[in-house]
């Protein structure tokens, strides 16, 4: 019996999110929760203790340095998830037990909940606050377990989780490619991309100049949040609104309001 060594072309999956198209409907959040078996919020959960891999944030021109006095106030919505940082990925180097790593073949920053200690150091390290901790045991109402996605293992209490571009879908694409005698899974679509009604999220391989993300990134109106940190996020954003791009060009939050908790 002989074995054949197959080599796969390394990919760098990423996204370009068009903020101007996002309506803030939250379909991406729901699709993500259903795909990744996120349990309903705990009875004592707050906005900041729930588990979500994508959150929709509101941008206000009032907080942008690009908005002058007397100009009309504007708002925009934007899904925010793990940015899949490429350079010196902040969460990878800090994890004490190698529960976070970058997959060399897909470029996806992977989280291994079964190895996670729950120290939350990676959450401190993440500049995008894109990680969630399971503060309580995940619980589904009776009967709802039947709706769980069998391709994704539910996570237990006390571990961190994050968006992994629907790794289960990539695995399924790989399996299908293998069955067809191919080594390369090619294109696949994460749940949030599929659910977006306005096609605001474009997904693809940054290594492929013909991919939708590479095409979208060619625009000067495409940017990344916190670009100066140098982590080279693979999720980028697009907007024709100068006030949004001006907001991205500056660093920290403008002193406007604070949120108390506890």
């Amino acid at each position: 019996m002989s074995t054949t060594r197959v080599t796969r072309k390394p990919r760098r999956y990423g996204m370009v999110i068009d903020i101007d198209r996002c309506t803030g409907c939250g379909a991406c959040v729901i699709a993500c929760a259903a795909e990744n078996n996120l349990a309903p919020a705990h009875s004592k959960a707050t906005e900041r203790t729930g588990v979500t891999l994508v959150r929709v944030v509101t941008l206000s021109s009032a907080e942008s340095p690009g908005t002058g006095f007397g100009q009309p106030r504007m708002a925009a919505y934007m899904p925010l998830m793990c940015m899949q940082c490429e350079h010196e990925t902040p969460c990878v180097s800090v994890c004490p037990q190698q529960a976070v790593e970058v997959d060399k073949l897909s470029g996806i920053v992977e989280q291994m909940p079964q190895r996670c200690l729950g120290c939350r150091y990676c959450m401190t390290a993440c500049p995008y606050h894109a990680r969630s901790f399971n503060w309580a045991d995940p619980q589904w109402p009776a009967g709802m377990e039947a709706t769980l996605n069998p391709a994704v293992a539910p996570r237990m209490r006390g571990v961190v989780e994050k968006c992994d571009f629907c790794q289960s879908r990539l695995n399924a694409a790989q399996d299908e490619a293998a069955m067809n005698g191919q080594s390369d899974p090619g294109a696949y679509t994460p749940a949030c991309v599929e659910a977006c009604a306005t096609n605001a999220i474009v997904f693809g391989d940054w290594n492929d100049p013909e991919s939708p993300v590479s095409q979208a990134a060619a625009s000067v109106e495409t940017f990344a949040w916190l670009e100066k940190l140098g982590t080279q996020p693979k999720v980028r954003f697009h907007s024709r609104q100068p006030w949004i791009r001006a907001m991205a060009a500056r660093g920290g939050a403008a002193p406007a309001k604070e949120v108390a908790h506890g």
Partner: protein
Amino acid sequence: MADMAWNAIVAVERKLKPRDAVRCPLPQFAAWLAPWMLLFAVGLYAGFLCLRDGLYHTNMDNRFVFGLWIFLDLAIIAFGGGAFFSGFLLYILRRRELGAIIRSAVLTGFLCYAGALLVLMLDVGQPLRAWFTFWHPNTHSMLTEVTFCISCYLLVLAIEYLPTILKNRQLRRIPQALVFGWELHRMMPVLAIVGAFLSFFHQGSLGGLYGVLRGRPFAFREGFAIWPATFFLFILSAIAVGPSFLIVVTRVVEFITRRKHAGGDVYRVLGRISGILLIVYVLAKSVDTIVWLNSTSPQSGFRAWEYYAWEPFGTWILFLEIAGLGLLPAIFLLYFSRTRPERLFVPALAACAGVALNRYVQTIQTQALSTLPFDQFVTYSPSWQEVAAFLGVIAFAVIVYSASYRYLNLFARSH
């Protein structure tokens, strides 16, 4: 009948106390311990709730992932620096005056580190996986180094403390225990070197925990080779404040027991060393702050004013940390160590408060500030379970120290 039982207990207890030692009567000792026991029991219950149900009992959240417990850890580990540093001074640099308090210093360090590990076990989401760090260590993570060194150093402190226990009046009657204790005592210089090595690294790595956070420009620092500036600042601040904490502990014990346990020579040495190192720390911290505000932070896209525009974290906290609770205590420590060593308590306490404030800023202010321009500044106040567990650890330390003081010779020159 009850009287007979009580008399028997008193008789047995008397035999456990060091010969010729003056200790309070048993009922008075029990009354002293009672509130601490109660506090410890409440802390245990709070810890039990967190272990049983999960960390939703705390007020930490996805933005404020470190809270009171991590602050406590960082602060008491810095205070515990007095153990390794006084051991280093006594056994390696031959500052024999410190022999008077070395056992108390070792116990203080042991309790600081044991308390830190107890709290860490509560703070992590999956405490039963703690061994994973040893099995799958990420050698690039500062937390790996902290975990390795703290675990090893706690073991070293336990070994260092063992001879003191073996000198108990009843244990001394066992010849093997006496010989074992003596052999351990001979190993002390080696243990002091090992302890100093381990302590240097984990004190530094605790600072490195924050210094390497590229995604948190408030905490991120450039440095030397793989170590950010905070690595060295934490070492310096720990060895500076460790002797001060020993002054505080010894003075408090003297006050409570109404006996003198250390002479002016001991306080002079501790005060002078603490003062000198604190001045070096304040200078280094000032240089680091200037470099950070003018170079490191702007390169990340953040201007200095942004960090201090949020109340209550104004610039006052920076000046209080460096000048009010850094430079001033250092000057008074040096002055009183030359003139009136009995007055070293207040500046030593202020120095401890300064380093605790530094750990608070590193932990809490780093979490409170948002990096994203559209995110908000967030605040946090601990839940009763967090506070109870925090106080429970302090109660644990007081109970163990009190029992050790009563039944062992913690101070060589008590009179």
